[in-house]
């Protein structure tokens, strides 16, 4: 359960940091009350989605089918994050830069129009929050701790809000790629484990196999970064 909560917390932190950049850029145009209103509406929508998603998944009474469905979603999510983190770690893709993201948003012409800016904040918060929603529902339902997983995501939101209120600028120092690399490996481990278990496979080491899978993806990912890297590793690349 602890692994699932840590994965949820870290996923949520990365996504909320990206959402904060969008809300900050919008708030400078239409003011904090309206920007926070848009963010609140998106959060409310996500809360409804979390409830609906949890109810739908708990209606699946066959544990194998539930495990398989959740395993597939986690695999889709994990392999995507791991691939992206490897590409960024190896220098094949630019690192996500919150300052550049913020500057790009501020340069948009429509951010100064009230209605358009509200939608930018709402859509940004919703799309960033969707990945949090996916992890909360998938890990929460499978480990029977949806409330705890939701709480981990809310704690991450509060931490980002406090950090944002103190910094009053994009939170560019969060080691986003390192977090994505670690969380991607962790989520992919859960996905791999549950897919095979749902198909009747007996893992040789039981639940300890999860740790072995995590180590495999971390070491394998680091090996791929080394293989793909075209130039020497710079601090903070991974």
């Amino acid at each position, binding site marked *: 359960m602890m692994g699932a909560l840590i994965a949820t917390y870290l996923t949520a932190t990365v996504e909320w940091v990206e959402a904060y950049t969008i809300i900050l850029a919008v708030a400078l145009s239409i003011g904090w009350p309206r920007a926070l209103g848009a963010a609140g509406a998106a959060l409310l929508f996500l809360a409804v989605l979390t409830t609906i998603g949890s109810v739908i998944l708990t209606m699946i009474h066959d544990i194998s089918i539930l495990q398989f469905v959740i395993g597939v979603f986690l695999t889709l999510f994990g*392999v995507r994050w791991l691939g992206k983190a490897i590409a960024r770690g190896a220098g*094949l893709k630019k690192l996500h830069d919150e300052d550049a993201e913020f500057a790009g948003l501020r340069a948009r012409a429509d951010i100064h129009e009230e209605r358009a800016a509200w939608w930018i904040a709402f859509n940004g918060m919703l*799309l960033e929050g969707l990945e949090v929603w996916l992890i909360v529902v998938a890990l929460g339902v499978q480990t029977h701790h949806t409330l705890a997983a939701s709480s981990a995501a809310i704690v991450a939101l509060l931490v980002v809000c406090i950090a944002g209120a103190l910094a009053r600028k994009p939170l560019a120092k969060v080691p986003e790629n390192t977090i994505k690399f670690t969380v991607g490996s962790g989520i*992919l481990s859960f996905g*791999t484990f549950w897919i*095979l278990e749902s*198909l009747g496979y007996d893992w040789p080491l039981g639940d300890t196999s999860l740790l072995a899978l995590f180590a*495999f993806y971390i070491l394998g990912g680091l090996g791929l970064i080394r293989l793909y890297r075209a130039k020497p590793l710079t601090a903070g690349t991974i």
Partner: protein
Amino acid sequence: MQGFIKTIFGDKYTLSVAGACIVIAVTLLHTPAAIMAGFVLPACLLAGAAYLAKH
């Protein structure tokens, strides 16, 4: 809507990688070498992540 679907399911590359890996695992589970599935699926997925990193 497109962003919503892409966020949940990923792009066509991600879907292809995950789909191919699962098909390989399911096929392997129906052979006498079923025990190898626990080694083959992670290896396939890591190879998939390597492919996605390049695309």
